């Protein structure tokens, strides 16, 4: 009986979450919503081609909020950056992707 309960718990734990999860963001609400949308669009469009996704994110953000945006898309990375205030977005998406976009 206990084993059964454990198994059930495990099942519950193995749910894969794919929704966008904003980890850190100092943007205004409006900007944040748009940035998230941009990132989702790019990541969904290019699938595993993270380079293209990052490029698209960068270009679209450049277009929207002025130049010199940077974007990182990847499954595992470490970054240390200096960014303009109110332009940082660090989020997870798709359950295995970390995305960071910021403006210099």
């Amino acid at each position, binding site marked *: 009986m206990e084993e059964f309960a454990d198994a059930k718990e495990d099942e519950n*734990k193995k*749910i894969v*979450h794919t929704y966008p*999860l904003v*980890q*850190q963001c*100092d943007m205004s609400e409006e900007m944040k919503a748009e940035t998230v949308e941009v990132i989702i669009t790019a990541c969904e469009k290019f699938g595993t081609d993270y380079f293209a996704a990052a490029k698209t994110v960068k270009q679209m953000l450049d277009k929207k909020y002025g130049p010199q945006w940077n974007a990182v898309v*990847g*499954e*595992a*990375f*470490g*970054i*240390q*950056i*200096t*960014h*303009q*205030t109110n332009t*940082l977005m*660090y989020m*997870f998406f798709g*359950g*295995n*992707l*970390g995305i*960071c976009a*910021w403006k210099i």
Partner: protein
Amino acid sequence: MPPKLDQTAKKATRLSLSQPGQKKPFNKELSRRQVKIAKPVDDINGIPSNESIKPDDQLKLTEEELDEAISNVLQVTEPPELTARVSYSYRDGSFVPYKNILPFITLIDLKSTLINKTTECLTSDNDKETELEEVQGEIDHDKGDIEIDTDENVDGRVQEEVEEGESEGEGDFPNEEGDQGEGGEEMDEEKTSKPKATSDSDEEAPVVVQEDSSTNNINSSAKKRNAPKKLMNQFNFFERCALTEEIILRDKEVQTTPPTKNDFCTYTTQWIIYDAYNEDFLKQQEEKEKEKRDKIAVHASKKSASKKKKNDVTEDQTEKNMLITAKFLERIINLNTMDAIAQDFRYYEDPSDQFRGRDGTILPLWTMTYDKADNLYVTDISWSPDYFDMFAVTLGTSQGHLPLTDSPDVGYVCLWSLKNPSYPEYINQTHCGAMCLDFHRNHGFLLAVGFHDGHLAVYNVSLPTKEAQYMTDAVNTKHMACVRQVVWVKDLPDGELNFYSISEDGTVCNWLLMQSEMSKTIIVTLVLDIEPQITLGGISETLIGRGTTIAFHPENSGIYLVGTNEGYIFKCNTQWSSFFMQKFKAHEMSIYRIDYNKYDPNIYLSCSGDCTVKIWEDKSDIPLLIFDLLWSVSDALWSPFSSTVFGVITEDCDVVFYDLDADKYKNICCQPIQPESQYQLTKLAFNWRMPVIIVGSSKSTVIALKMSPNLRLIMKPPKKGKHYTTQMLELEKLHKALDSTREPDTLVVPADDDTTDS
């Protein structure tokens, strides 16, 4: 006239100012510029001017000659340069090619001493110019002629040749041209000798006349002259306010504040992402549950109200914590200030007891008063079963008090601790005088309280709330008169708590604590089998004894004794309520206490308002001993330490101890506590562990007293011989003391004595 031909590019200078009329005379001459222009034109010009003025040497021409048409062709091209021109060289004695590039020949060069007002030499000295303009204004006309003369001369010399198109602009330009010429000169001058200023200008003027300057010079000088400047000196007055400041252009650099920047550093791995998602998921679920709960709460408004109550309780919690701290502080302060008493309480043993035989003393320790209720009686005292230094008292009206006259409508239940004699640990104000109380033996926090108006309540003193856990119903269940004593008894087999109460309405009731209420069972009604003294309308009423005290048999919980206000003692059994096991008249007045001996349940004592304490043996209605204290006895209790010792308090504030073993006729200790005028003593209670008694008074004062060693002598088991327990020895002591008083027919005991003796 070769010079005339060469003159094509040359421009007129001074002539510019000359009027047409003045020009006329020159027109006659062939050497004029107008020579190039067709003669008829000349004539036409001449007609309007002055035809009469004719030089003497003018050629006289016939009309035919005059009419003869002389054609003149205007050409766009410059006259052809004379390439093959030669001049005779006297030195060489032959003709040499003439190499002068200039298309004119200087015939004569004269220096003039006159200045034209508009000449450029003035403009060069900018300041002077304006001044001169005015001054020379008059001279202009006079000079005009002179100048013209000079010009004429110059012209004559220079032999200008001007095209027809230029002739019209002649009036405008000459000035400029002349200026240019001179400007050129001036330029050179300035370049060579700048220090030369106004004074030189006059001298320069003649030089200016020379018109050999190149066209380039002319152009540059013309530009220069466009911005004349006044020289500052004594002749030139400058109004300061008219001076405009020169605008100086400067380069200025400005830096904007850079956008604020932040540092951010992180690293991402699969497991970090996974954890973050899990955490967030849990949070979301919690929020969902919260929303659900909120919905439920909104749905049931009653529940939300209850929640609020809970919040209030939590707020009280902090307050409670603070109060606890304050209580600690108070207690420590009290312990410090009353350190001597505390030491006595624990360690003082009266050394004088050794020399006093069997007599003993009592040592007053603390006096505790609840100031708020200092006019109330201490109606009952009960030691806590859990803490030996804590006891509860009830404060109410006196026992014989009639409720309708002037009874105060308040009573208190107070818990005192010996550690803090200045203020009660627990205070509960009740709706009327509290008359009696009892701690539950196993649940030390449950307190049964009886009230003056017949109500009963059970309090839980461990809860912050002061409300009674159980309270009797005013209509159905409560007693009809003052409750005099409550006693917890053993729990029922199914664990239900129950207690007995005795009231002045003559009933003994058993109270069972149910889930939410107390169920009442009337155990017995104390009917007095005596002739009614009063008959109302021929109907005789049965008299009912007003119960005042109840005592349960220590070993057989079904048997109990009841004392009444009329002095009767009833021996009853909980099983049969229809009859009494024993009923006899014990006292003449109200019985205040019946107490079983702590060692022998067959022996009990009773005290009464008729100033006597009687010791009884079970199944006998003749007392074994009678002690007359000459004052109304409020309370009497067997000592828990010795089987033969009991304490008595009287209304005149005496505490009296008797030891049957020592002396059956005289007390071993009689000590006044207070002057009787102040108050009377009402209740007595022995501590079950320490040699301390508590005495309550009519002024809500509680006095703690310490018994000296003589008052609690305990039979010690002998070290040699047969082994006897303290219990057995105490029993023996008691019986030995009582033997002599027993009636002969009850002398069954001697056998026991023999055994013990042996």
